[in-house]
């Protein structure tokens, strides 16, 4: 009889340790994934002045659009708090998209090796930001699910694991950037 009780205690103990460790590992991975996004954002800040410098000479009539990119960049860098920074990042993404779309109108830009290289660098940075966010959200889903399904939810409640927040894309970013081709001033 006493043996059966010890066996139950032993199995329960193993289960508690492994579940606790899984949850902790997931929490650390979520935090790490969040930092990965920051790394990519930093890279984008560094690349933007380069882009603007390079295309400025060609895109005489788009100084407005370029200025908007510069403004959006400094706003994004200064933003604090999750919501504000998400909005500023979205605005930056949108203004960059506009520049890319406008670049299609300048054949001499497409011929320049420098510009093509920069464009590839920025494309990959944009993609990397998107994929880093996607991975972050995948991890958050895993982490939150683990906290809510039975039986691990009992332990998550007891050890006070908090659900992580999803990175949601603001409305503005899901919309396709509109390009005004009439050039009325």
């Amino acid at each position, binding site marked *: 009889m006493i043996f059966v009780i010890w066996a139950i205690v032993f199995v329960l103990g193993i289960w508690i340790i492994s579940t606790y460790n899984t949850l902790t590992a997931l929490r650390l*991975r979520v935090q790490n*994934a969040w930092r*990965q996004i920051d790394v*990519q954002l930093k890279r984008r800040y560094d690349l933007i002045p380069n882009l603007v410098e390079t295309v400025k000479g060609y895109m005489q009539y788009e100084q407005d659009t370029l200025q908007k990119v510069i403004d959006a960049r400094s706003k994004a860098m200064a933003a604090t708090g999750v919501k504000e920074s998400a909005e500023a990042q979205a605005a930056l993404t949108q203004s960059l998209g506009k520049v890319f779309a406008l670049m299609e109108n300048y054949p001499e830009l497409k011929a320049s*090796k420098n510009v*093509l*290289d920069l464009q*590839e*660098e920025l*494309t*990959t940075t944009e*993609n*990397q930001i998107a*994929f*880093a966010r*996607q*991975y972050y959200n*995948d*991890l958050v889903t895993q982490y939150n699910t683990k906290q809510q399904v039975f039986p691990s939810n009992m332990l998550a409640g007891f050890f006070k694991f908090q659900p992580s927040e999803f990175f949601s894309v603001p409305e503005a970013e899901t919309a396709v950037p509109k390009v005004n081709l009439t050039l009325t001033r």
Partner: protein
Amino acid sequence: MGFFILFFLFIGGAIDYLYFDAFTRVGPAFPVATIFSLGMATLMTLTAYYGGSGIILSSVGAEKPDMQIPEHRELRNIVTEMALASGSAMPQLYVIYDPAPNAFATGTNEKNSTICVTTGLLTLLDREETQGVIAHEMSHIRNEDVLLMTLVSILVGGIAILADWGQRGFYSSRSGRRLGSKSPLLFIPLLLLIALSPLFAQILAMAVSRQREYLADATAAQYTRNPGGLARALEKIRDAGMAFQKATRGTAHLFFVNPLRRRLDDQDGGLANLLTTHPPINRRIMLLYQMAGIPQSVVQGPKVQTFK
């Protein structure tokens, strides 16, 4: 996979029973032949496994990418993107200067893995399609397929060793009384099975390999959220229809599409379902388009070109 291990244990047990009188009162306490052949096969495969990446890479003529070439920079960027999407470390990158579009991944674990791409693939495919191919290779690394296929080759090797012993043992002990004491009803089918077992093992190994290809396609779609890119890549590679000369039968199962391009590989059903390392390319394309939500009737491509 579980079936594979059972099959191995069964063949090992049969050999032990017939030649060493195991599982009877007079025989040894444990199945000698099974354990010994498994040990030998493990040793052989592990040698290949640890020295393996380097040998494979040099045998296909892989080189480090040249970052002065825009296409190679783009490739590095795409691999970085997919490493982020799958949440794994950046793999080492190699290119092969060869016009046949193909790619493969090797490596012992996530932290020590390699992705290798031919220059033909880079010129043939656009950015989105290359991304699909890299995501497929990344999936092989994340799903630990290299490890799995190593385990499979240990079992295939072990069965080959057992079958070899079985056949030799039969001729040398025919005059002895070892087999005589057992019922012929039992040992004749067992001997037949042992003789045919290397063939069965090969067929099983190829089935495992094909399943992992489907899984890698599905995981790639999950990473890129864009199954269409990978599907178009497969279509372009199918229509290019070039064989990769430096691949051998030993390394064929590693590649993105079967580098040997036999006529059999493009067919569906019958023998093709038993004897190929890769699933039929048209079937892979169709499944990917289904994931993308495009009806099957639209994707009936041109008649497949086959090459000897």
